[in-house]
Every structure is written in structure tokens, then in C-alpha cells.
């Protein structure tokens, strides 16, 4: 399942997509939990009883601000969450 968390507003589309098929039985030992400086990721049991990562609810509505420090303008050349997720389950839309 592709789970898209985020929103679209007047300034653009801000979604973090998590491919839960790659997330189940994480080969990176849940590295996303510690890689995100804002600790936005959390492990939950989804509707189909799989343990997967998701974005915490309050962050879903403020992604463009929460992720800003990890973007090139914040000095990063690659996103910490995507780098830590070696199975490649995490993607940013912007």
C-alpha cells in the first residue's frame, strides 16, 4: 500500500509517501524513527494488522515547515529520512 501523508495548499503539494510493502519487516531496523530531526515518524499497526511507519497526525498538516530544515535550503544534499530508509519506502513529493 502507498500511504500519502500531507496536503496541498496555495503554495504547492507536500506529501510524504510510505510504501508499506517495503516498510513491513523493515530491513533498516526502523532507522526513520531516529533519522528525522523532528521525530515525525512513528510505528503503528495499520488496518490490516501490519506494523508500519506513518507520519504523526499533527505533522501531516505542517510538513512544508517541518521538513524545511532538511531540504537543500537547510544545508542538506539528501533527506535524512530517505537516506536512512534503505528499503526505499519513503518519498517526498517536493
Amino acid at each position, binding site marked *: 500500500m502507498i500511504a500519502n501523508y500531507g496536503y496541498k495548499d496555495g503554495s504547492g503539494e507536500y*506529501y510524504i509517501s510510505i510504501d508499506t510493502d517495503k516498510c513491513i519487516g523493515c530491513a533498516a531496523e526502523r532507522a526513520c524513527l531516529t533519522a528525522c530531526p523532528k521525530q515525525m515518524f512513528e510505528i503503528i499497526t495499520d488496518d490490516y494488522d501490519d506494523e508500519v511507519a506513518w507520519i504523526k497526525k499533527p505533522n501531516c498538516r505542517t510538513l512544508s515547515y517541518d521538513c524545511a530544515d532538511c531540504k537543500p535550503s537547510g544545508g542538506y544534499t539528501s533527506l535524512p529520512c530517505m537516506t536512512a530508509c534503505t528499503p526505499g519506502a519513503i518519498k517526498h513529493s517536493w
Partner: protein
Amino acid sequence: MSSAPVTVVNVPFAHKAITEIACHARGANYMGGNGVRTILDMGGQDCKAIHCDEKGKVTNFLMNDKCAAGTGRGMEVISDLMQIPIAELGPRSFDIDADVDAVSSVCVVFAKSEALGLLKAGYTKNKVIAAYCQAMAERVVSLLERIGVEEGFFITGGIAKNPGVVKRIEKLLGIKAIDTKVDSQIAGALGAALFGYTLMSKKAAA
């Protein structure tokens, strides 16, 4: 006054929470058949684009619950502004001479402001309603296009009862939504009941 006897029922899965997304997919699968693949839920306070498989299991989803654009709340704002019952907005949006451009599809506050401007400029109420229905259709179509649209299109939620929005979505997508005799507004509740039924059946069989 005598009260009716109370029957206490033990619901073993009462603590379990299932997301609205999964419930709407399951409900749409039941109502529209196992050919349903793309679901658009236009609820009162949020809007969801969902892909599911032949069993109604979610394979891709996207939700907008940050703003009122593309939700029933936005339609209520226009209904109040026009002083027209919400159930009449859809049919009245077709009672115009020619198609009109959409108002802002990004924000309901902007859309309301634009609608007021159009009324002052001499637009009829029906033309303004048509402009808002078009804006709402464009907004939700942009959500759907983000996850991709497949044949087997089903709409749930209260706005599914508004032909002014539904017909415009169908026109923009180039596909027709699956008709159902069941009230589209109960899709989520129906899906939740089906999840409960499955859990209860498993419990009984164990």
C-alpha cells in the same frame, strides 16, 4: 415511566480502531462491486482519494483534511451565502446558459470572496453555484490524479449526492462513476460494520 429492559452485549473488538480510509474502501467495494478500483470520498470535513483491490483492500490513498476546499463544509459555506438549501445547489448549477470559469479551488475563504464579487458583478446565483461546483470538481480531480485514476470509479460521502459536482468530475476525468442504489453517505459506516462482522466471524470460528 417504565424503561425498556437493557441487554448487555459484549463486543470483543470494541477497542479496535479502523481508519475511515479502510472503511470507505470496504464499503465502496460492497456497494459498487469488486470492480471498484478508484474511490473518491467527499465528506463533510475531509476528502480522500483511494485505490483498492478487488477485495476492497486499500492499495494507495491520499487525504486532504487540512482545509475545507473540496469538502462538504465548503459547499455549506456557499449554501449559506446563496441562501439556497444545499440539496438544490447541484441541480441549479446546470440551470445556466453557458459554462462558467471556476472560482478559487485552493481555499474556501478565497472562493467565498470571489463568489461575492461575481454576485456584485451581476452573475446570477446559479452561475455562481456553477462556478463553485466546477472549482470543487477541479480540486478533487487534482487529488485523484495524484494517485492515478483507474476504471471502476466510485464516489462516497455527502457530495456524491450533488450532481453539479459529480457530473463535472466525470467530465474532467472522462469516466462515469458507478451508480448504486445504496445511500453513498453511509459507505464508511457500512465498511466499519463489515470489518466488525469479519472480526466477529473470526472470533466465533476460533
